[in-house]
């Protein structure tokens, strides 16, 4: 019997790359042989199934399981590319009040018995959906764009994690926090149009697990339903692969954080 680690992918602000990150991280862990489930907590605005290319295979969803209309096995969608990866889609028709603490806990507890990792894709904001996604977490991936409002929202979310999560309420060890900077553009940082990695780290004060460069490959991957980590030719895909390595305790140097030189721009 395994007892899964629960990872919440959160940010506060919308559009920073939570779902992209959830899909990439879940796929990355599964490719490493870890049995992984990824859950979309964005009830009513589901996206994860699109990015994971299983939209048309959704029969039962997360809310159906919570409300006892389906079993977990009926609702879990097995990924076609990796046998260790399962997706639990959000409901498109219900609203987020369908999420209850007891219901979410029961689903997570059942998953935890057979999975290694449960990745919870949080909706934006700090309302109920985001609260449910982070409440039971052991590990938080805080996704931040290098701009002021995103950093501020991440700071807010960190405060919520530290005061309102289950671990905080029960006085257990705090949630392990990792900072993931996405959509990083070294050229724009050089021009002073974006915060630097150092700026972001100085404000948030949590350890950095990776920097994902701004990349066309992310949009391409989303549109084609391929988690970007599967595109190992792309810089973003490689950066996510590095995140998985670091997540498992390996010491991997940061890449894609310097401005491209002339030759790289021409040939790279």
């Amino acid at each position: 019997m395994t007892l899964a680690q629960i990872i919440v992918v959160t940010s506060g602000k919308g559009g920073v790359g939570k779902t992209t990150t959830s899909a990439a991280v879940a796929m990355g862990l599964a490719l490493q042989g870890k049995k992984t489930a990824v859950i979309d907590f964005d009830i009513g605005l589901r996206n994860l199934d699109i990015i994971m290319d299983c939209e048309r295979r959704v029969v039962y969803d997360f809310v159906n399981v919570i409300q006892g209309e389906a079993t977990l096995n009926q609702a879990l969608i097995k990924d076609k590319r990796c046998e260790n990866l399962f997706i639990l889609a959000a409901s498109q028709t219900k609203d987020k009040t369908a999420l209850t603490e007891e219901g979410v806990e029961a689903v997570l507890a059942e998953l935890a018995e057979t999975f290694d990792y449960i990745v919870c894709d949080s909706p934006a904001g700090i309302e109920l959906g985001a609260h449910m996604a982070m409440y039971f977490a052991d590990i938080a991936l805080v996704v931040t764009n290098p701009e002021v409002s995103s950093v501020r929202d991440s700071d807010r979310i960190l405060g919520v994690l530290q005061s309102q999560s289950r671990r905080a309420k029960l006085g257990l060890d705090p949630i392990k926090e990792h900072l993931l900077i996405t959509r990083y553009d070294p050229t724009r940082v050089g021009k002073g149009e974006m915060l630097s990695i150092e700026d972001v780290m100085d404000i948030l004060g949590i350890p950095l697990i990776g920097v994902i460069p701004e990349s066309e490959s992310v949009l391409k991957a989303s549109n084609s339903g391929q988690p970007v980590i599967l595109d190992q030719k792309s810089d973003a895909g490689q950066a996510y692969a590095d995140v998985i390595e670091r997540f498992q305790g390996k010491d991997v140097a940061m890449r894609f954080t310097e401005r491209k030189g002339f030759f790289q721009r021409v040939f790279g």
Partner: protein
Amino acid sequence: MDAQQSPLQRQPECFSIKSGQVPFATIVLHRLDIAQFQQQLSKQVELGAGLLVDAPVVLDFGKLPVGEAFFKQVVQAARSMGLIIFAVRMKGEDLNASCQQLRVANLGPAHVKPAKEAPSPERTRIVRQVRSGQQIYARNTSLVIFGHVSDGAEVIADGDIYVHGNLRGKAMAGASGNTNAMIYCDQLHAQLVSINGIYAVNEKIPIDRGATLISLSENQLEFGDPQ
């Protein structure tokens, strides 16, 4: 010589009257037991030699239903041990004649203030970063934070505030009235700082000056270097 002086040539006055506050001790009685009173007081006088002897002292009877005989006994007992009983506090005016006889002023019952406790020397200590949206209020104490105070966070104390980190959010010291309160931070990038309600917002706050001690001087915030 003309006995009448013109007002302009009036002699300087011999004295003037000032109202002021003089510190004095108050003995608050809890029960009507003269033997116990004498016993406890003599012990107290022995212990704190000089603190009560030859010092102005007020006897506070509170709401005790004190009679004339007991009243006189207590005042005389205290005086015989060297205390200068110059006033009493009690309910009602029944014993005003006795007061006159004993040459003590009746100040009436003590004001029952919804006691605003003096800031206690204890500190509220926070060992983490205070993040956006979080508010910490150290009631009646000073606040010590080992960590940054993020933009959008608020730290408030009735006493002083020490931030061993970068102060980016709002800090309000002396929040329920204290002109002596101070704010210290390792780095100052605050959105707002306030002492005793006197505040400065971001554009009025000198930034990038490193460790800063903020205090109040003549109703103006002063941004100084720690000594």
